[in-house]
């Protein structure tokens, strides 16, 4: 099914994207409201939560350029050394900019 990008069509498309996104924002909580929280589910939820972050970051590191890899490595090192998120993030971004400025393609 095709929707033409006339004014009405675009508004319809935006509405559809909004609803689909809203379903994802509400859906997990809605489903959980039928689940009894026991220690096992609690443990699943907690491990899953931190795994979400890893599952976003690791493919990002592998699919990106040398700059994005440098950003993540530097952030990780500073974060583990200092436990302070802001310096770690700032250093990571700087590393990405620097690597790209220097035109390094591989580390």
């Amino acid at each position, binding site marked *: 099914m095709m929707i033409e990008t006339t004014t009405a069509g675009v508004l319809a498309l935006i509405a559809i994207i909004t609803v689909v996104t809203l379903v*994802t924002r509400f859906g997990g*909580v809605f489903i959980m409201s039928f689940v009894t929280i026991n220690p096992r589910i609690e443990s699943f939820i907690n491990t*899953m939560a931190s795994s979400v972050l890893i599952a976003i970051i690791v493919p*990002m590191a592998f699919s990106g350029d040398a700059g994005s890899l440098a950003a993540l490595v530097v952030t990780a090192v500073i974060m583990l050394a200092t436990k302070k998120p802001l310096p770690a993030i700032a250093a*990571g*971004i*700087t590393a990405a900019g620097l690597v790209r400025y220097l035109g390094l393609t591989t580390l």
Partner: protein
Amino acid sequence: MNASTYSYQFRPEKVRSEFFRLLPISLFVVAFGAAFGLAAVQKGLEPLQAILMSFTVFAGASQFAAVDMWGSEVSLIPLIAVVFAINSRHLLMGASLYPMLREMSPGRRYGLLLFLTDANWAVSAQEYQSGKRNLEVILGGGLALWLAWIFGTWLGVYFGGLLQDPKSLGLDMVLGCFLLAMALGGNKSPRTLVAWTVAAISSLAAWKWLPPNTHVVVGALAGGAIGFFWLEKKPDDTVADGETSP
């Protein structure tokens, strides 16, 4: 709202401090909003349509993917599939906040979820791991991110040329670095490290071999399975098999 039946004490003054706490990262989000605004008008959206989309959708990666499919016509099913796949991580993110959210009335609960996005969720989920309950960051931090996203889109559609290449400044890595810092700031028990390893390997495998945009959910569920079968502290009765999906 009846405060006696729902025990979560939502503190308005904390919403304010969480707003300011996520303001620095929101400044970077402005740059991405601008990149989106520019991409959207280049793909033929009207400026106001692009701003409207950022206002109502508020999910950057899926918006970029959506306008990437733009043309004189847009085919609906692929659009819905891509947007759903990219945003499906929200399902897991929302579910992970459920132990806190269930202590709020449904109206507030779903109202808060309107503001759910990666950065404010990461803060809330990470603090929950260390025993702190912080849903205020979802609202306060979410507001900062949302306003920044809309403001950035506005900048991009009207003054897109200002920041042609946020990538050269490393700005595309802000969210990645932020999420990584949040992950590493949490507790790192042996169980967590095993779960991370499993999540990393399965998300990479999914990224390589499964349909696009499924890797986050696959990796997160695989990591979650470790938690499902490996309970911390008390020695557990072994369960032969079980469903790992929520």
